[in-house]
């Protein structure tokens, strides 16, 4: 469980990035943190694996204050996939990249091999195992970064903008895969602007603006609240926009996905010939 208690964070440059953050993420939850550029989303999640320590207030991971834990210690439990994969990739081959952290954590070679193969398959990277990560496309590099974290099986997985540079199929795979991780009891926290992806995933949504949490709740509530979204510089999902515009005809407006939208319209129109 992650507990954030009245956290403020000010960067050395004087920029106040977080203000009065109070938040609890239970084990096994699936949470999306949304908000505009500079809202403090990434700064907040960097507190979860100890990359940053609060200027004021406390962060507890499974009851232990992050001030008393090293990043090395925390990262075994909390895996962090960066927004920009280039920040975390440096090995000569994809395979070595994925094995790197496993070696650092002291896994034996047999387990490492097994885990690497598993992660390569999982993210459809097998054909690149001997390729340099820097020869890959932006979207593929992103998958390598993700594979290298999943390989050590952390309890909490933080994904900073996981859908950037991913095409539709990969997003769909990523979604199924997050759902699968979540079903297995993993806590998944993603930072994202991708409203359509959030609408498809339907997690608990935390909305941030100017260093503060401005709203939280289930996706259907938050993503259909135009005023709240506007505060966070976010446009509602396309399906929501359509249904909001049709409100005057007596259609419900809290609709975020295609399937549901179709069902409502079918009911509304009666069974067509």
């Amino acid at each position: 469980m992650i507990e954030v208690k009245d956290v403020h964070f000010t960067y050395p440059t004087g920029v106040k990035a977080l203000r009065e953050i109070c938040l609890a993420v239970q084990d096994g939850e699936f949470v999306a943190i949304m908000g505009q550029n500079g809202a403090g989303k990434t700064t907040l999640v960097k507190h979860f694996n100890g990359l940053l320590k609060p200027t004021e207030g406390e962060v507890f991971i499974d009851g232990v204050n992050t001030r008393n834990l090293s990043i090395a210690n925390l990262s075994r439990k909390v895996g962090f996939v960066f927004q920009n994969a280039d920040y975390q990739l440096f090995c000569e081959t994809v395979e070595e990249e994925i094995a790197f952290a496993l070696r650092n954590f002291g896994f034996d070679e047999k387990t490492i091999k097994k885990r690497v193969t598993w992660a390569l398959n999982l993210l459809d990277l097998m054909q690149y195992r001997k390729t340099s990560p820097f020869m890959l496309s932006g979207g593929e590099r992103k998958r390598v970064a993700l594979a290298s974290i999943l390989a050590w099986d952390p309890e909490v997985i933080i994904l900073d903008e996981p859908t950037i540079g991913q095409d539709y199929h990969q997003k769909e795979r990523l979604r199924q895969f997050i759902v699968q991780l979540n079903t297995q009891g993993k806590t998944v926290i993603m930072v994202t602007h991708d409203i359509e992806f959030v609408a498809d995933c339907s997690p608990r949504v935390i909305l941030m603006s100017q260093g503060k949490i401005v709203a939280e709740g289930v996706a259907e509530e938050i993503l259909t609240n135009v005023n709240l979204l506007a505060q966070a510089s976010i446009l509602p999902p396309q399906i929501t926009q359509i249904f909001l515009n049709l409100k005057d005809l007596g259609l419900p407006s809290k609709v975020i996905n295609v399937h549901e939208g179709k069902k409502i319209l079918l009911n509304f129109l009666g069974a067509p010939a």
Partner: protein
Amino acid sequence: MAIIETKNLTYTYPGGTTPSISDISLTIKKGEFITLTGPSGCGKTTLCRCFNGLIPHFYSGKLEGDLVVKDLRVIDHSISNLARHVGLVFQNPENQLFALSVEKDVAFGLENVGMPREEIRKRVDWALQMTGIENLRERAPHELSGGQQQRVAIASVLAMQPDVMVLDEPTSFLDPLGAEKIFDVINELNKKLDITVILVEHRLDLASKYTDHVIVMDKGKVLFDGGPREIFASEEVRMTGVGIPKAVMLYQALKDEGIHLKEVPITSKEATQLIREIIIHDRS
């Protein structure tokens, strides 16, 4: 008038065993707003690198076929020469920005072509204003957020007022409203200054309303080349994993149930209108 013409363009990176793009034949007309899309790894970025000569002059490797940009055969002209005509905004802005201030980064290309100081000043001011980052003028690019860096990268290319702007996922780090602002800027450049725009983008829901010509690539080849509405109606394109707008998916889902909207909507506004018509018709 064609501003970019490729004929059977095929390219293999040095050390590569298979071509990254193969047999690409395209015509891009002056003033068009093109969206170039396709699954990750399909060769979009590679094709863009050909337009300003990074391929083959910087990356080397093996380039076959023909590529003419603004009447210049790319193979015969240097990157510096081609850069006056084709500006490329990289996918990762950090790979493009290097100066100690935003202003200097935006001025760099202009200094390189030997533009008079006063003109540089004017162009920099204009580019910063167009991209909405005048307040970042003195900041160091490497200290900015990903979204702000993307704007700086666009400004630095924009300042050159090239004939063609190639933007490789220029809004990937931006929030949707930020992305829309950038698309508006790009659209304005396209309409007002007649700059030909080639936008590489997965988020077709955001981009399609500006586009008049979509090129879909898959496995190094051009799979589809036409208008946005035709593209979204194509089963073949849908199968490749191109990001179809949700409005189009709703259209398809309704069609599967026997409800036919009059045409394929590409924006939520169009979808609203089409659904409204059907409901009102149903009631009368």
